[in-house]
């Protein structure tokens, strides 16, 4: 069968069910696709056709993803396979265990295929902070794909992957999904086990799917979600059948539009795409009204205090002792620590370690860290008030602008941080959100809209997103490569 790489996971599962294709054919199709386009996109750090074919020949006899290849962001541990967070400091690291999400994928018959590029340790919004190379946007290779899960989004958009896993700490699934024109879901904090996800900010990180459409994202989340005794922050709430939410019925659903998200700095084409999307929802019987998330303006500040503080602690484990890179000929143990870390971390990782250590240091803790924790509470309460008032979801742009040019914000970290302005609050609150395509700019760049839900209301988000997607064809467009 031709062009299997362009199919969705659900379409492939149907073909596999009817024995119209074999898993090996799907692997070969996406492998040859990536051979022809990845030189332009550079979405994969590692790709091993033979290993994937080997796995495809040893699949369990049944499973919800049996025969579907899944690309994996490079910060999710796979037993015995290089996992580097796109960082030099994890050079050569082969985890001794599978992350829980990998375990779940394997037992449902998914074929792990390819390691997607990312900003080093998920620090970034452009994929330019990878220690390997930047990934480029399939819609315009002079632009960034977003980040930090830029590789995952780009390979799905470029049909080099059927579906992918990413991780989202401040927008790292949703922003690249928006900039590459795919669907990306950041689940409720605690919905998906973080066991085996190399930690960036432990109170914010979640793993989630990137997919070509809403149905695939719903299917994927159903597989990876669930309580895990190995992650004490995972929450023991039953996992519904997310695909069963895709019934198209959103009549009477209440959508909130936060006024604070439609302010200066919002690109006019993004603004008008969102306004048109609102009309589509109204046309399907949803009730739309303005809401307020009054502490939005503090979100970026709160985030860059808390996320860097947590990151500086989490990254303390990279010291050249147990795994990864160690500097040459250290004269003593302090020299080993300092040079290993100085040589092993890239610029953004160092910047965040310094900032995080600073805000936690004696004399600054109250002014920064404690203060940020208090404002975080207010940001969470903003969302709770909206959902307690009966809103089913909140609709916003995912990113204030479409994909920017490579290098455009690299020298100015603050401008890079501000590209996450619409996605960060969601992680601070812990609620779920997804991004889905809602239009294109005049120059052909994808625009994404974000739907935010209440705690553990991923099903509602999928229902809303699917209802919109069924009335539009943005998700069916493919970049010319």
């Amino acid at each position, binding site marked *: 069968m031709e062009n299997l790489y362009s199919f969705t996971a659900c379409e492939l599962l149907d073909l596999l069910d009817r024995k119209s294709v074999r898993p090996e054919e799907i692997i070969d199709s996406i492998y040859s696709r990536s051979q022809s386009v990845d030189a332009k996109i550079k979405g994969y750090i590692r790709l091993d056709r033979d290993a994937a074919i080997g796995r495809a020949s040893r699949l369990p006899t049944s499973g919800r993803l049996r025969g579907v290849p899944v690309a994996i962001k490079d910060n999710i541990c796979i037993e015995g396979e290089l996992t580097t967070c796109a960082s030099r400091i994890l050079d050569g690291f082969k985890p*001794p265990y599978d992350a829980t999400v990998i375990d779940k994928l394997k037992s449902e018959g998914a074929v792990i295929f390819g390691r997607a590029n990312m900003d080093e340790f998920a620090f970034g919004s452009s994929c330019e902070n990878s220690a390997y190379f930047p990934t480029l946007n399939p819609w315009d290779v002079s632009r960034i794909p977003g980040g930090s899960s830029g590789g995952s989004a780009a390979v799905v958009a470029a049909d080099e992957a059927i579906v992918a896993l990413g991780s989202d700490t401040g927008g790292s699934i949703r922003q690249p999904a928006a900039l590459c024109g795919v669907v990306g879901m950041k689940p409720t904090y605690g919905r998906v086990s973080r066991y085996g996800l190399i930690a960036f900010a432990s109170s914010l990180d979640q793993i989630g799917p990137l997919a070509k459409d809403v149905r695939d994202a719903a299917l994927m989340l159903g597989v990876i979600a669930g309580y895990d005794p190995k992650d004490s922050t995972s929450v023991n709430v039953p996992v519904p059948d997310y695909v069963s939410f895709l019934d198209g019925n959103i009549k009477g659903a209440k959508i909130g539009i936060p006024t604070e998200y439609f302010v200066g700095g919002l690109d006019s084409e993004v603004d008008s795409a969102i306004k048109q999307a609102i009309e589509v929802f109204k046309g399907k019987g949803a009730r739309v009204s303005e809401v307020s998330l009054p502490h939005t303006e503090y979100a970026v500040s709160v985030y*860059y205090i808390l996320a860097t503080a947590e990151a500086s602690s989490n990254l303390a484990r990279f010291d050249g002792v147990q795994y990864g890179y160690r500097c040459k000929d250290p004269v*003593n143990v*302090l020299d080993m620590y300092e040079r290993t*870390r100085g040589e092993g971390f890239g610029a953004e990782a160092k*910047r965040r370690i310094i900032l995080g*250590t600073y805000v936690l240091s004696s004399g600054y803790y109250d002014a920064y860290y404690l203060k940020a*924790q208090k404002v975080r509470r207010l940001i969470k309460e903003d969302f709770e008030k909206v959902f307690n008032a009966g809103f089913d979801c909140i609709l916003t742009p995912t990113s204030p602008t479409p994909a920017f040019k490579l290098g455009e914000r690299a020298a100015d970290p603050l401008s890079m941080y501000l590209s996450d302005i619409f996605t960060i609050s969601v992680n601070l609150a812990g609620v779920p959100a997804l991004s889905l395509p809602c239009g294109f700019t005049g120059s052909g760049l994808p625009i994404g809209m974000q739907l935010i839900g209440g705690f553990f209301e991923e099903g509602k988000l999928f229902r809303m997103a699917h209802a919109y997607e069924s009335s539009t064809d943005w998700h069916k467009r493919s970049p010319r490569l």
Partner: protein
Amino acid sequence: MSIKEDKIKYVARLARLKLTDEEVALFARQLDGILGYVDKLNERLDVAKDAVPMSHPHAASNPFREDEVRGSASSETVLANAPQKKGDFFKVPRIIEE
């Protein structure tokens, strides 16, 4: 609050992170800008004075489990990634001076 180069050097030492002089100068400049932005929080100190600090999205409770004996990784597995090892140990430079 502004951040000076000597503070960057001090913090880098706390973080066990060797920086070049160029990095120290660059980070001082950049972090000054970032902290200037972050200080928006402190301009409106009253905003959050009564809020309960939040460290986690869900109410924290200790997830107890049965204390069952389970297998663990062999020392061979654990040491497989070591930059340097000796026997059953990670090898590091001398820690206690003679």
